[in-house]
């Protein structure tokens, strides 16, 4: 099989995903297009070399609908020969976009591709795309559908993570993100979002709250208790996991991923394509995998898919230097570390979505770029990126630096 190399990665800063967020004035297409322009401009890339752009987007409707990848390609003034396709694997869309883009190269069908993602949660809105899974009784009932927050609370309840456990994790995420920003660890990849005049609209992740401590988190009320009780979701969870007497609702805005706007893109290709473009490969895609898991507890996919991808790659967790496990909710990372036997010192070392936010379709791309930068900074070799996914799935990708 042909090797697929990563040549570059960029991302936008993450704007608060509300109407007062800095990126609320920027269209989803423009967020994606600015990432593509940055890839082109900083690499002096002849875009005619790019075969296809794969972009993740979880609510691809309205302005984000109708194949936003092609819209971004055209808006970014890429060569018209560059195709674009939008994919949706919920929260892992941005990582799977990289995997899909890599598949084109590894299967020798394309030479150079871009994998990326975009989500303007402030403009399009979480859940705007609809979908049968929570709504159609034929599926929702048999799948014991519950919203993610309830599933995260179920994980905490079933596996015994207390409110203090999840809050302590959240405090650490904020600390790490703050330290990483102060140390300039993101500066290689973060490209400010600018206006038509070239003025910066946003140049930093604005969701962060570095002052967060246990005391400030303790004042937050559980976000999903009322909904769980009144809308029947607790009961549905318990029918699927009858060993649970009642749900311990521990998650709130402070220990769950932030709702933000953002986009990211990763340039990939085979060796020859890189040479043609005059680029040095930074890393190789070593392996990736997807898996389905029980949809009601929903968020345990990172464990199963990590085991799956490592087995396929003939590796063990000890062969991985750094992990990125998406901080959808604190309990998910705690469970994954626990079940996989991971040292927190190797996991999400620069913080994650609890501090900086989770622009659904883009996060997977962002995590891969973040960990690649960190491998280079620490001069380490391998990393594994994984995310939990709606309806019970997991996606993981293993990369390896090349010198």
């Amino acid at each position, binding site marked *: 099989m042909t090797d697929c190399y990563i040549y570059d990665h960029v991302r936008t800063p993450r704007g608060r995903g509300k109407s007062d967020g800095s990126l609320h004035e920027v269209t989803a297409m423009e967020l994606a297009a600015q990432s593509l322009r940055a890839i082109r401009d900083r690499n002096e890339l002849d875009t005619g070399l790019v075969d296809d752009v794969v972009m993740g987007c979880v609510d691809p409707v309205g302005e984000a609908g109708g194949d936003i990848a092609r819209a971004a390609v055209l808006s970014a003034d890429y060569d018209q020969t560059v195709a674009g396709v939008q994919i949706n694997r919920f929260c892992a869309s941005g990582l799977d976009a990289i995997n899909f883009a890599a598949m084109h190269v590894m299967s020798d069908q394309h030479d150079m591709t871009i994998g990326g993602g975009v989500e303007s949660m402030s403009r399009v809105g979480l*859940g705007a795309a*609809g979908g049968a899974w*929570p*709504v*159609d*009784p*034929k599926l*929702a*009932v*048999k799948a*014991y*559908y*519950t*919203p993610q927050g309830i599933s995260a609370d179920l994980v905490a309840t079933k596996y015994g993570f207390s409110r203090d456990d999840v809050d302590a994790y959240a405090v650490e995420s904020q600390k790490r993100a703050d330290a990483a920003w102060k140390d300039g660890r993101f500066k290689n990849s973060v490209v400010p979002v600018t206006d038509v005049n070239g003025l910066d609209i946003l140049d930093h992740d604005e969701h962060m709250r570095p002052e967060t401590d246990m005391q400030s988190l303790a004042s937050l009320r559980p976000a999903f208790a009322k909904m769980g009780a*009144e*809308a*029947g*979701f607790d*009961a*549905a969870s*318990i*029918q699927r*996991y*009858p*060993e*649970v*007497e*009642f749900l311990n609702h521990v998650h709130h805005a402070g220990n769950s991923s932030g709702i933000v706007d953002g986009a990211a893109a990763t340039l990939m290709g085979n060796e020859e394509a890189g040479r043609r473009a005059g680029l040095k490969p930074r890393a190789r895609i070593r392996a990736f995998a997807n898996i389905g898991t029980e949809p009601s507890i929903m968020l345990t996919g990172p464990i199963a898919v990590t085991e799956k991808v490592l087995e396929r790659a003939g590796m063990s967790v000890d062969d991985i230097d750094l992990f990125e496990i998406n901080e959808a909710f604190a309990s998910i990372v705690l469970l994954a570390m626990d079940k996989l036997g991971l040292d927190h010192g190797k996991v999400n070392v620069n913080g994650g979505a609890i501090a900086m936010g989770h622009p659904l379709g883009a996060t997977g791309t962002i995590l891969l770029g973040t960990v690649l930068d960190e491998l280079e900074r620490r001069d380490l070799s391998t990393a594994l990126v994984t995310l939990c996914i709606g309806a019970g799935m997991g996606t993981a990708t293993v990369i390896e630096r090349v010198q």
Partner: protein
Amino acid sequence: MTYENFGFEVDADGIALVTWDMPGRSMNVLSESSMGELADIIEKVAGDDAIKGAVITSGKSAFCAGADLAMMRAMTEDYTRSVGTIGEKAAVKDLFERVQQSSGLFRRLETCGKPFVAAINGTALGGGLELTLACHHRVAAINPKCQLGLPESKVGLFPGAGGTQRLPRLMGAAQALQLMLPGRGVDPERAAAMGMIHEAVDPGDLLVIAKRWIADGGAAQQPWDGEKFRIPGGANYSPGGMMTWAAANALYRRETYDNYPAQRAIMSCVYEGLMVPIDAGLRIEARYFTQVVRSPEAGNMIRSLFLSKQELDKLARRPAATPPSEVKKLGIIGAGLMGCGIAYVSALAGIDVMLIDVDQAGAEAGRDRTGALLEGAAKKGRLSADAATAALARITPASTYDVLEGCDLVIEAVFENRDIKAKVTGEAEAKISDDAVFGSNTSTLPITGLATASSRPANFIGIHFFSPVEKMQLVEIITGKETSEDTLAKALDYVRAIRKTPIVVNDSRGFFTSRVVATYLAEGHHMLHEGVPAAMIENAGRMAGMPVGPLALNDEVALDLSWKIRQAAKADLGDAYVEDEMDAILDEMVVKRERFGRKNAKGFYDYPKEGPKRLWADIAELSPDQLDPDTLDVRELMDRFLTIQALETARCFEENVLTDVREADVGAIFGFGFAPYSGGPLSYIDWVGAGAFVERCDRYAGLYGERFTPCALLREMAGRNETFYGRFDPHGAVRSAA
């Protein structure tokens, strides 16, 4: 034009008044004949230029009670027969065509071009309400007792004549589901507020207002046939609609545990139907109806919850030779919780009640407690204030047995203690006439034994009420060895008078209901001992269809009471008593830890003053091991609960404690809430199949204990491939006796 089931008159303004009044019936029902005539009437109105429109009302106090369940049953019987003759696929297709007929009739009504108004003069249920929903305008006479609703799901069916399509188009999915899933009805004023009907009016104005709507030019078009129609509350995939459906799906599961095909089908009919024009929606509804009608749950529920219950209510088991009797004066000894409940239901039935306790203060307190119950019911609108006052006036509190003089029936509801009961029996019999009946409301003590204290054991009978008496529908009548047929007949007449459902069982320790419930409780103990997490035991019980988990139920019954019953059984049975894990757990809980259940706020659960009960934190200490829930199959836990109860019921049948399959099933559902979707424990065995059931019992006996060993009757039935309702057909028995 004359019709058998309808009056038909056209007034001077050209408005037809269609008065539904079926001969020889107290209630109108949608039968084949009434539907056939309705079809003719629709065409008459549609085709006659002199007729402007029609008002449909009823000549009876109620508008319509719904579909004729006998017709429904015939439909399923025809289907079963056709499967044998023309094959399943063709039979299903025929059934589907037939199901669409009533729906098609109502659709014809609303598209025939002439305006139809439903003038709802009284209760309209099921197919009756569905007819009104197809009318272009609905007015109903204000009457708090009038019920408008779609109760089909209560007997395992669902509104299959357009109800699942029209109701949500009138009031939105959320409200429509809240009515249809539990089969809840509302009175006309509430119905108007919800959008089910257009107007609730003074009864005297009903027809005038109905006709005026036509005279004023009311349009013969339903809102959903108009171009600008929007679903109230938003379409399924509007932001509001999505939230509604996500919650509705979870709430449906919370309320039904997904055990009821009818409710499941209602959900899908509404969801899928609201996304298409009504004609396609009606077709979708008919497809699901065809599926549900064929489900074992629907068949079993119609049989047990409706047909068998109705037969028992009409005293199917009453000895025919005894002339009808009436209890005019009733004595109740013991003004506790049960005594007061019995006083409540009896006084409401117009019976004079002597309520006796050890002292006057106790008796008066009992009377006051009954008064509070009556007041509560009046406040909730279940009975009128006058009826409540009259009922309370019929209750005489007393501390002397002298008041028993002239009583036709005396029921003792004192402590479950043989000596006390014997004393009460003797003292009461001294005051009552020789032909009066003496009933004991014992739940566990064998009647034949108690009757030895009686000077006329032929008149002695068990009348076992369930708590709370005012809510529980069942009464278990227990005949002792000496109990006469006359006594049985009189007891049954009394049960009918207080509008409860009787089952008749022969004497045995725990009779039928208590004996079977005990196996449910015990199975919970066994699982606890095995190391199944307590929450999983409780949830599995509820998921199997029981109203409460076995541990919670044991807390309610009181653990020390369970312990005492076991001590008594040990003393009675001596060496024959087999100790099991339940004895060990009860010893630990009651003797060592003094955890008696809800009564002392410490049992398998803790009962904090504030907030809900929670499982006792140290409950795992009751078992030597803790099993990993991820290795357990909850389906098997659920099956164990139903299997052990069904097996015990089969044993009762084999031992002649039970003699009628209907009583087994109706008694189990209404007595202790045995999984209603199954139709009862014997229907459950028939459903599983005797062969498969015996196989399962044998497997469980090997895995979990000898208590699962099937009885000889079941093995015999398995060998012959028999069913309970086939071998012990209650109607067959009546026929052969006649």
